[in-house]
């Protein structure tokens, strides 16, 4: 096996490249990235970077210069030829591979209607997006409207309220942070209201107003939210369209259909890592899952990188870690492990002021996930328990 090519130069791609080398692969290793920057960490983009507490340099991953690989940055991969085993880049050249690791991540879902290009309408995914939003927030606007009350929307609401800017947080769902379930979603709603956020829940957005610059957001309930800035935070789409013409199986939401070892079911020489992967998880009874969180991207990179240098697919290792995610909003650290949304009931088992512990169980009473507010030690204990169960499953 001569050459490993990693497509995607963010967290999953970086960890994959490091794992390929750590596993003893000594010949060619190429990492392709569409952004011009070396890999950087994204969680601060909606928090510390947006708040001005960190710079873009602070977000750069350390250790990238120690990875013995060729970085091909600034040009996305646009096609793969599986017969010739070659990947075409937008810049025009083709890179041959023996093993391919796809770690192309996701992009922010744009506003689907008119007005997406109005001045003052933002999305948040890359460093440049965060710097543009930060510049706009420091230019003296009075009002920010956020369309979508998920992770990005809620975190940006919290960061922006610290600047004293009026924030309206809008979602078609009846609660913010849907993955937390209705009960904890209600706690999040209280948290944001307590910090002066105007919550508009259970109502969709029908349009963005404005001719050159955005002036407001029209809601399905007939009201209008005036705002000089709008953040569209409608979630993310996996960057996998470029693979479909090559006959690499994608699921209905664009995830690359993989087995438990993160190997494409269409091609044993194609592996995947991070947001793009759809793979069967033991804690979901073997159902396919797709996870868009930091820790899973890091773990996937390690597994896919090690597996890529194993020739016999039967000897590759499965990825069984329970997913872990977090969100920082105001002075609350929300942490979760496993698949809380797969539970049939969520029970708050401990509560002490802003600290909270909740367990998600399925119909048989089996623990499938846990969520804590400001209780990292308890969350770590659940994580250990679920990791043990996942290995045993």
């Amino acid at each position, binding site marked *: 096996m001569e050459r490993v090519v990693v497509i995607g130069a963010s967290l999953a791609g970086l960890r994959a490249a490091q794992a390929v080398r750590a596993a003893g692969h000594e010949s060619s290793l190429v990492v392709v990235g569409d952004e011009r920057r070396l890999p950087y960490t994204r969680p601060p983009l909606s928090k510390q970077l947006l708040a001005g507490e960190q710079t873009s340099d602070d977000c750069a991953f350390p250790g990238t210069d120690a990875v013995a690989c060729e970085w091909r940055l600034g040009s996305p991969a646009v096609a793969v030829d599986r017969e010739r085993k070659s990947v075409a880049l937008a810049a025009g050249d083709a890179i041959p591979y023996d093993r391919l690791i796809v770690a192309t991540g996701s992009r922010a879902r744009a506003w689907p209607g008119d007005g997406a290009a109005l001045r003052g309408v933002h999305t948040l995914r890359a460093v440049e997006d965060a710097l543009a939003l930060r510049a706009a927030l420091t230019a003296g606007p009075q009002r920010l409207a956020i369309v979508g009350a998920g992770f990005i929307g809620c975190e940006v609401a919290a960061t922006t309220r610290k600047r004293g800017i009026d924030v309206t947080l809008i979602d078609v769902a009846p609660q913010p942070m849907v993955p937390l379930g209705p009960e904890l979603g209600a706690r999040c709603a209280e948290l944001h209201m307590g910090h002066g956020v105007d919550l508009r829940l259970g109502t969709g957005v029908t349009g963005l107003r404005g001719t050159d610059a955005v002036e407001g957001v029209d809601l399905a309930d007939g009201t209008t939210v005036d705002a000089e800035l709008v953040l569209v935070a409608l979630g993310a789409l996996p960057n996998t369209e470029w693979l479909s013409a090559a006959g690499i199986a994608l699921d209905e939401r664009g995830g690359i259909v993989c087995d438990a070892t993160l190997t494409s079911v269409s091609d044993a020489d194609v592996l995947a890592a991070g947001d793009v992967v759809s793979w069967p998880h033991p804690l979901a009874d073997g159902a396919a899952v797709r996870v868009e969180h930091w820790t899973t991207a890091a773990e996937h990179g390690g597994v896919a990188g090690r597996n890529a240098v194993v020739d016999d697919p039967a000897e590759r290792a499965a990825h069984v870690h329970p997913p872990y995610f977090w969100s920082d909003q105001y002075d609350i650290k929300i942490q979760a492990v496993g698949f809380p949304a797969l539970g049939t009931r969520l029970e708050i088992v401990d509560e002490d002021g802003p600290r909270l512990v909740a367990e998600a169980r399925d119909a048989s009473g089996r623990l499938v996930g846990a969520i804590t507010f400001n209780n990292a*030690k308890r969350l770590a204990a659940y994580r250990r328990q679920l990791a043990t169960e996942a290995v045993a499953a």
Partner: protein
Amino acid sequence: MKVRVDMNLCQSHGECVFPAPDVFELGDDDVLRWKEDVDESRRAAVEEAVNACPMMAISIDE
């Protein structure tokens, strides 16, 4: 080797506790405790902890 944690960055995710439980520990107050002087034999585990930290708060002094 010396293990450093920048406590201005640490946010008690506890990622480091899994690869190297003998080096890192979350206290009952959710504040991280760790051993500064760690035997060379644990380097691989500590490097794993360095890579697992979402806040990039952990470093190793040779």
